[in-house]
C-alpha cells in the first residue's frame, strides 16, 4: 500500500516536468520540420549540422538522458520527507522510487522511439538524415535491420540509458543528503578537481597517456564499440550501472535520518 502511494507520488511529481520537456521537444522539432518542409529556414544548431545531402539531425535522446539525470537529482529529498511524515518505511520509499524510474524510463523510451520513427519517416521525404541514439551507436546494424527490429532495440537501448541516468542522479542526491557539510564540500571540490586536474596531470606525467587510452577503451567496451555494433553490450552496461547506483542508493536510504 505504502509502496504504491510512493510510486504514485513520484510519478505525479515527475509528470509535470515530463510534459513541459516534451512540449519543448515538440516545439523544437515542429520548428525544424516546418523549416525543412517549407524550405523557409536553414537550420544550423548544435545537433543539426549541414551535410552534402542536406541536414543531419541526430541523437536527440541525449536531451532525455540529461533531463532524466536532473530528474533523478530531484527525486529524493522532498519525497523522503513527505514519506517520513506519512509513516512510510525507507524500503518502501526506495522501492516505490525504483518502480517509478522503471515507468518513467520505459515511458520516455517509448515516446522517444516513436519520435525517432516519425522523425526518420518524415525526414526521409526531404533528403534529411534523422538518427536516434541507437542509429549513432549501431550505424551498420541499423542500416541492415528491419524498422521493427531497430525500433525494438532502440527502445531497449534508450530505456537502459534512461534508467542509468535516473539511477546516477538519484545516487548523487541521496549521497549529498547523507553527507555532512564538510563531506559535501570535499566531494563537491574533490571529484571535479580529480577529473579536471589530477587525472590529466597524472596521465601525462606518470602514465604517458596510458590512463586516457584505458578509459577510452573501457568506455568503448561498455558501449559495445569494440564488439562490432552490438547494442546489447551498451544495454547491459546501462542496466549494470542502474543496478549498481540504485543498490548503492538503497544502502544509503535504508539508514537515512530525517533532517530539519
Amino acid at each position, binding site marked *: 500500500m505504502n509502496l504504491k*502511494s510512493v510510486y504514485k507520488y513520484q510519478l505525479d511529481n515527475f509528470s509535470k516536468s515530463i510534459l513541459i520537456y516534451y512540449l519543448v521537444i515538440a516545439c523544437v522539432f515542429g520548428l525544424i520540420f516546418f523549416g525543412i518542409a517549407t524550405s523557409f529556414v536553414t537550420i544550423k544548431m548544435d545537433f543539426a549540422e549541414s551535410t552534402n545531402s542536406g541536414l543531419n539531425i541526430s541523437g536527440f535522446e541525449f536531451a532525455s538522458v540529461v533531463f532524466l539525470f536532473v530528474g533523478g537529482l530531484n527525486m529524493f529529498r522532498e519525497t523522503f520527507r513527505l514519506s517520513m511524515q506519512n*509513516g512510510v518505511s525507507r*524500503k518502501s520509499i526506495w522501492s516505490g522510487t525504483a518502480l517509478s524510474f522503471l515507468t518513467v524510463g520505459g515511458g520516455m523510451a517509448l515516446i522517444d522511439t516513436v519520435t525517432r520513427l516519425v522523425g526518420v519517416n518524415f525526414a526521409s521525404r526531404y533528403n534529411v538524415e534523422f538518427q536516434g541514439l541507437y542509429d549513432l551507436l549501431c550505424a551498420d546494424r541499423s542500416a541492415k535491420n528491419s524498422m521493427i527490429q531497430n525500433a525494438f532495440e532502440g527502445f531497449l537501448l534508450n530505456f537502459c540509458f534512461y534508467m542509468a541516468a535516473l539511477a546516477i542522479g538519484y545516487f548523487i542526491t541521496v549521497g549529498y543528503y547523507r553527507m555532512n557539510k564538510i563531506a559535501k564540500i570535499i566531494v563537491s571540490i574533490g571529484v571535479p578537481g580529480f577529473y579536471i586536474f589530477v587525472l590529466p596531470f597524472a596521465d601525462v606525467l606518470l602514465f604517458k597517456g596510458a590512463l586516457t587510452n584505458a578509459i577510452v577503451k573501457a568506455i568503448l567496451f561498455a558501449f559495445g564499440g569494440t564488439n562490432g555494433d552490438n547494442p546489447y553490450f551498451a544495454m547491459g552496461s546501462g542496466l549494470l550501472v542502474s543496478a549498481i547506483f540504485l543498490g548503492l542508493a538503497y544502502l544509503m536510504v535504508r539508514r537515512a535520518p530525517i533532517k530539519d
Partner: protein
Amino acid sequence: MNGIEVKGVSKNFGTLAALKEVNVLFEENRIYGLLGRNGAGKSTLLNVITGRIFAEQGTVTIDGEVSAENDRALKNIYMMSEKNYFPEGMKVRDAFKWTKEFYPAFDRAYADSLSAKFELNTNKKIKSLSTGYASIFKLITALATNAKYILLDEPILGLDANHRDLFYRTLIEKYSENPCTIVISTHLIEEAAGVLDHVVILKNGEVIRNESKDDLLAGSYMVSGVAAAVDAYYAGRNVLGSDSLGGLKTAYVEGEPDAAGMPDGLVASRMDLQKLFIQLTNA
C-alpha cells in the same frame, strides 16, 4: 501488547546522550502529556517512535510489532512535527489529498470542516501560511488521519488564544467521538493540563515520572507561610524545592499533607501540573 511500547531506547547526538535507556508504554485510548524542558529528549523520543531517526539501542513496538521500517506498524501512527515535512510549494488541499493516499482512513470531510472552523484557506500553499496557520494545517491533518496513535509535537506553536481554545475543544470532541491515543508534547503545561489524563516527564533523556495526572498531583503539595515555620515543617520530609519572597516561603513537598492538619501559620494546598513540573525538572 497493545499500545506503543518503548523498551531501553538510547539515542546519542555526538557526545550528547539525548535518550538514556528510556522505557515507557503509551497505552490505548489515553491522552498523554509528554513533558520536559528544552533538550530533555521529547522530540527525539517521538522521532524514534515514528522511525524518523534510529536509536542506538532499544526497541519500539506498536501493538506488539517492531515499528522500525515496518509499514504495517507505522500506518497506525501519525506524528505532527514542529517542522513541516510536506513540500513547501504544495497546497493545503493537495496535502490533504496525499495524506489520504497514505492514510486511507483520512477523513477529508472532517478535515474540510475543521479548516472552515479554524478559517484555514485550503487553496493556500503551505509555505505561505503563517506560523500559527502552519500549526493549524498540521493539526487538522493529524486529527483527520484517524490513526490509532496520534503524536503531537508542539501542536499549539504560534496559535492565538482563541485558536488554542478551539484546538483543545476539538481534541476533546474528537477523543470522545473516536477514542485514540494522543501524545501531546508541549511547553504550555498549564493550558494542556486540562485535557491530559496521563503524564510522562523527561529530564535529561530519562523518564522521571510516568503516571496518571491525578496520581501525580495527589502525590505532592505545597506549604506556605513564614520562612522559619516552613523550614521547621519540611525538615525530614522529601522537599522538591522552595520559593522565597520577603519573609514568606513556599515549599513543594512530596507525599500527602498531615492528616492531623497543618501547624499554625502554615497553609497546605495542591500543586498544579506546571508548578510540579517546574519543581521536578528544576535541579
